[in-house]
């Protein structure tokens, strides 16, 4: 079963001085319910790839298809950006319902669902507060609820933890990883943090430096009972995967130098 299929996608940016090829012949597939991570050196076009999948950009070449069996259409893709982008002029609750408000589908049923999520993820007492009164981790959870409120079948995560400090980052990744597995969502995570990728993903796609190509696709099988990001870090296989990924990325740099 395939949920998303990316076939030979290429994309270039244009500026006055030059045309920059960001992605070249990228192909991979994602199965329903799978958590896929994409790693690569910074600036290699990882975020561009997500923008293409989301439909914010159109590929120059190649196709991105979604399969109906998995119930994914372009309209129910949830996208989490690097920053939480909560609006300071709205309360936490009004931030969380933003997507529903935009799509005019703020029904009683959806409101109940949001209420449940606010309770489950420890934000119920803060729903009337302003975002600035929340901690970094709480803000990121609020942003996740805003995304999940749209009931997306595919979640795109664009380095959603990179703005947090190290400790919060691991906690939030743990939180959000668990929430996504609980809800059974298909997810694509873009990151340059190798530990984060190994601890969260079922499969990892390694991209090369710009123009980005797929260098390697690696399955992650960790022998821990419950695959939560925090537990995964103490799995015996963890270091092995880390070294493999590290070598992949390192060899890319050396060849270019």
């Amino acid at each position, binding site marked *: 079963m395939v949920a998303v299929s990316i076939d030979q996608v290429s994309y270039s940016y244009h500026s006055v001085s030059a045309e920059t090829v960001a992605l070249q012949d990228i192909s991979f597939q994602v199965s329903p319910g799978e958590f896929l991570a994409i790693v690569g050196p910074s600036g290699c076009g990882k975020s561009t790839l997500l923008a293409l999948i989301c439909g*914010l950009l159109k590929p120059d070449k190649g196709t991105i298809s979604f399969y109906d069996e998995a119930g994914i259409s372009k309209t129910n893709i949830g996208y989490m*950006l690097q920053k939480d982008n909560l609006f300071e002029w709205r309360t936490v609750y009004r931030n969380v319902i933003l997507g529903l408000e935009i*799509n005019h589908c703020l029904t009683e049923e959806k409101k109940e669902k949001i209420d449940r999520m606010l309770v489950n993820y420890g934000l119920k007492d803060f729903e009337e507060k302003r975002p600035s009164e929340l901690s970094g981790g709480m803000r990121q959870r609020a942003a996740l609820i805003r995304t999940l409120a749209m009931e997306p079948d595919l979640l795109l995560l664009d380095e959603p933890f990179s703005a947090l400090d190290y400790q919060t980052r691991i906690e939030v990744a743990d939180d959000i990883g668990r929430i996504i597995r609980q809800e059974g969502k298909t997810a694509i995570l873009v990151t340059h943090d190798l530990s984060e990728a190994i601890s969260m993903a079922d499969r990892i796609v390694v991209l090369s430096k710009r123009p980005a190509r797929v260098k390697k696709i690696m399955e992650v099988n960790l022998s821990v009972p419950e695959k939560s990001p925090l537990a995964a870090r103490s799995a015996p296989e963890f270091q092995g995967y880390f070294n493999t990924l590290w070598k992949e990325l390192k060899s890319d740099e050396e060849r270019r130098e």
Partner: protein
Amino acid sequence: MKKDENKHQRYLRKLEREKYAVRIGQWSILVVFLALWQYTTDRNILDSFIFSSPKRVLNTIVTLGSSRILWEHTAITFLETIVSFFLTTIVCIFMAVLLWWQKVLSDILEPYLVLLNALPKSALAPLLIVWLGTGMNTIVVAGMSVAIFGSIIQLYTCFREVDCEKEMLIYTLGGNRRQVLTKVILPGSVPGIISNMKVNVGLCLVGVVIGEFLAAKRGLGYMIIYGSQVYKLDWVMTAIILLMVMAMFFYVSIDKMSKKL
């Protein structure tokens, strides 16, 4: 524990004292200024015929005030400023939205806006009189002309400075450009719009008074010109003081309003 409380209370008292010191400082400047003005004119160090004096201003307010002329002049200037301020605000927000919506339009109009903003507006006033006559229209347009061009540029800049990732968020949630405007750009620019309004109300008052200098038969600007021509400098001083009070009132009103938001 007890010691800490004392420390905290001492800190609060210090804050309180500082606040009073600022207030006392502010009032004493006014009092000293008025006292010096009165003293020097009483002792004929300054000629009270040319420089007027606090007492003479007060007398003018009482005598003119009882015949309602003074209040008519004040009310006219007040009304003209309010009208030109509201029109300026509406037109500026509308224009800034238009420029944001059509970036090409803003590129095309930019040199004209900069040019019109730099132009001394008092140079336009005589033209306005010829075109629009000497009524209230001219005065209102004169008031608007001083504020409007700079204000459009400032508001447009303010719109463009809103974080573009926030715009992108709306698109990822399935929104369109209109929703970017109503959910992000406008609410996100409220502080910018308020500070713009604070500047505008002052500029509108300047424009209205310039207009009244040249065109009007009523208003505080007219009173200043008339007073200086017939050497009733008490009238001029009174009008200036009323203008100050009015400017203060406008500023404080907008400030109060913005704090309620």
